[in-house]
């Protein structure tokens, strides 16, 4: 019993920090006496100009994949979002995941100098300033971005490690289709190449059908300018596609008549047509963020189980929860109206009986695609489902969290 007490205090502390609200501490006032005031945060220049979160809220990003970041070579800079502390569906811009192969170096682009050029198989090539882009009709949409390397492993301990390379923000900008119509697409246009202005000029080929469907030339993120780590002053949003396609520091779109096999495209080269077909569009995926690996339940009783679901195929239609390791599935509640290619928050009211079990979630999207188990995936690829099994292509498998009878929460894959 005694060993459980520090864990319980830890839980209450982090719980209070999360809620950002009341604590149970302090001296009880006499009956009818006004409670004592809390200590004050001094309103300095920074508090006036650009507010900060509470010093009690310490949730931060971490290097992804268990490697130091920036790595020994000073390049790989993959940092993961603390999903275990997330509430709602918006990832704060400061906590949005980042993936780049050029380290901590972020291009410092003067938006007044930045230009976006559209050319190639168009009737009228055009160059836009940031001012031009902001004059055009805009859209504001919630969209997730997920790195293709966002995969669970047996070694991972927390949901930040298993799933932290996905984030969701509100993006504002001009539909790429508006700009392409302004330029006039030629009949032979079938692909486009998007290119960034950073030092490596990262470029990817994408189908023109996607450009005309829902791509956004985004200059706004969560109510302000896109952050430098996310592509300031403008990035391409390719809703539901792997993160790498969401070209940062967008400087050029070239309309072409074939797959261009740029370096980023070469990275997608596969031998197996089925693995290649899993590329681009992310499958239906969900994960429970509370309770999740590394957290501690203080004891039996009521908990609101909570998590996130998303799909590159559209909006989330349904999320189901199992509290008995997959034997039974029950519908979770979806918070708000699920948006297409956006994180959707779900919850489930759970009374834990104090016994060891496993919590799982699985989602269904508007296409009727259902998130698979790892066993189902192994069967599809005709591979033995054992410790050596690794999901080929994008990993959207169901994540189990094991609840110990001591209230500990651990990775069910371990």
């Amino acid at each position, binding site marked *: 019993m005694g060993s459980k007490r520090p864990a319980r205090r830890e839980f209450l502390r982090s719980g209070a920090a999360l809620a950002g609200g009341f604590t149970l501490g302090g001296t009880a006032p006499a009956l009818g006496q006004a409670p004592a005031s809390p200590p004050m945060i001094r309103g300095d220049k920074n508090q006036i100009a650009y507010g900060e979160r509470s010093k009690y809220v310490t949730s931060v990003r971490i290097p992804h994949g268990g490697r130091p970041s920036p790595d*020994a*070579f000073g390049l790989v800079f993959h940092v993961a979002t603390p999903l275990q502390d997330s509430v709602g569906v918006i990832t704060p811009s400061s906590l949005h995941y980042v993936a780049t192969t050029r380290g901590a170096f972020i291009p410092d682009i003067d938006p007044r100098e930045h230009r976006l*050029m559209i*050319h190639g198989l168009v*009737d*009228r*090539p*055009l*160059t*836009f300033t940031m001012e*031009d882009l902001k*004059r*055009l009709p805009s859209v504001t949409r919630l969209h997730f971005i997920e790195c293709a390397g966002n995969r669970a492993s047996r070694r991972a301990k927390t949901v930040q490690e298993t799933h932290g390379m996905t984030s969701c923000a509100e993006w504002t900008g001009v539909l790429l289709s*508006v700009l392409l119509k*302004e330029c*006039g697409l030629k009949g032979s246009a079938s692909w486009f190449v998007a*290119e960034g202005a950073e*030092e*490596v*000029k990262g*470029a990817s080929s994408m*189908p023109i*059908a*996607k450009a005309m*469907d*829902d791509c956004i030339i985004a200059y706004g993120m969560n109510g302000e300018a896109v952050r430098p780590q996310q592509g300031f002053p403008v990035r391409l949003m390719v809703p539901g596609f792997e993160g790498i396609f969401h070209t940062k520091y967008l*400087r*050029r779109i*070239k309309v*072409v008549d*074939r797959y*261009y*096999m*740029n*370096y980023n495209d*070469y990275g*997608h*080269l*596969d*031998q197996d*047509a*089925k693995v*290649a*077909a*899993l590329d*681009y*569009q992310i*499958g239906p995926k969900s994960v429970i963020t509370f309770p999740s690996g590394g957290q501690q339940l203080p004891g039996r009783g009521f908990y609101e189980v909570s998590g996130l679901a998303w799909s*590159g*195929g*559209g909006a989330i239609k349904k999320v189901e929860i199992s509290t008995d390791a997959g034997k039974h599935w029950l519908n979770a509640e979806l918070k708000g109206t699920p948006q297409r290619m956006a994180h959707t928050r779900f919850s489930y009211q759970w009374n834990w009986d104090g016994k060891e079990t496993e919590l799982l979630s699985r989602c269904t999207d508007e*296409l009727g*695609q*259902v*998130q*698979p188990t790892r066993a189902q*995936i192994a*069967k*599809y690829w005709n591979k033995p489902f054992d410790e050596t099994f690794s999901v080929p292509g994008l990993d*959207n498998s169901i994540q189990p969290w094991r609840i110990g009878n001591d209230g500990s929460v651990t990775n069910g894959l371990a």
Partner: protein
Amino acid sequence: MGWRNLGILTCAWLVGVPALAQSPTYGVGRTPTAEEIRAWDISIGPTGEELPPGRGSAKEGAQLYRSKGCAGCHGPTGIEGNAPILKSKAGKDVELWARGRILPLRSPFATTVWDYINRAMPLNREGSLTPDEVYAITAFLLYINEVIPEDMVLDAQNLPKVKMPIGNNYANLPEWKPRAPRLKGYPY
């Protein structure tokens, strides 16, 4: 006006409709000059139509590989550094897909090798290589992977025609369609 003329007029009108729908709606943005487009257009596709004039051989490339600092990150022979390896450690008896993810060996097009060196190398001095130097380093990397002979001089005409060992032995991407599953039969 006879029927024939009316027919011509009708045709002109029908052709005119899509042309009108294609005209700019907002009139925002500026037309870049042909020179501006050429300067910005660094994406080299499989046909190589964007390649600038220039030429280079593997021998010149071997020197540049040392003098431009490539060896510092990729190793003296392309396999010893911290950066991605540039030469297969396995021999030709090993199946291509098992020989590692090596750009100048596995890429379906030699243009991709040229494109990447030109846009992204050397580290921290990107964009400093001249077209001749990029042709030469490309030739060197293709030579050490036994893709081209040592004495071959690469230029804008023959680079796109280099036969890469992978041939057609890679998967084509299925057509992407909105609101459709990506892989039929996959358990999702």
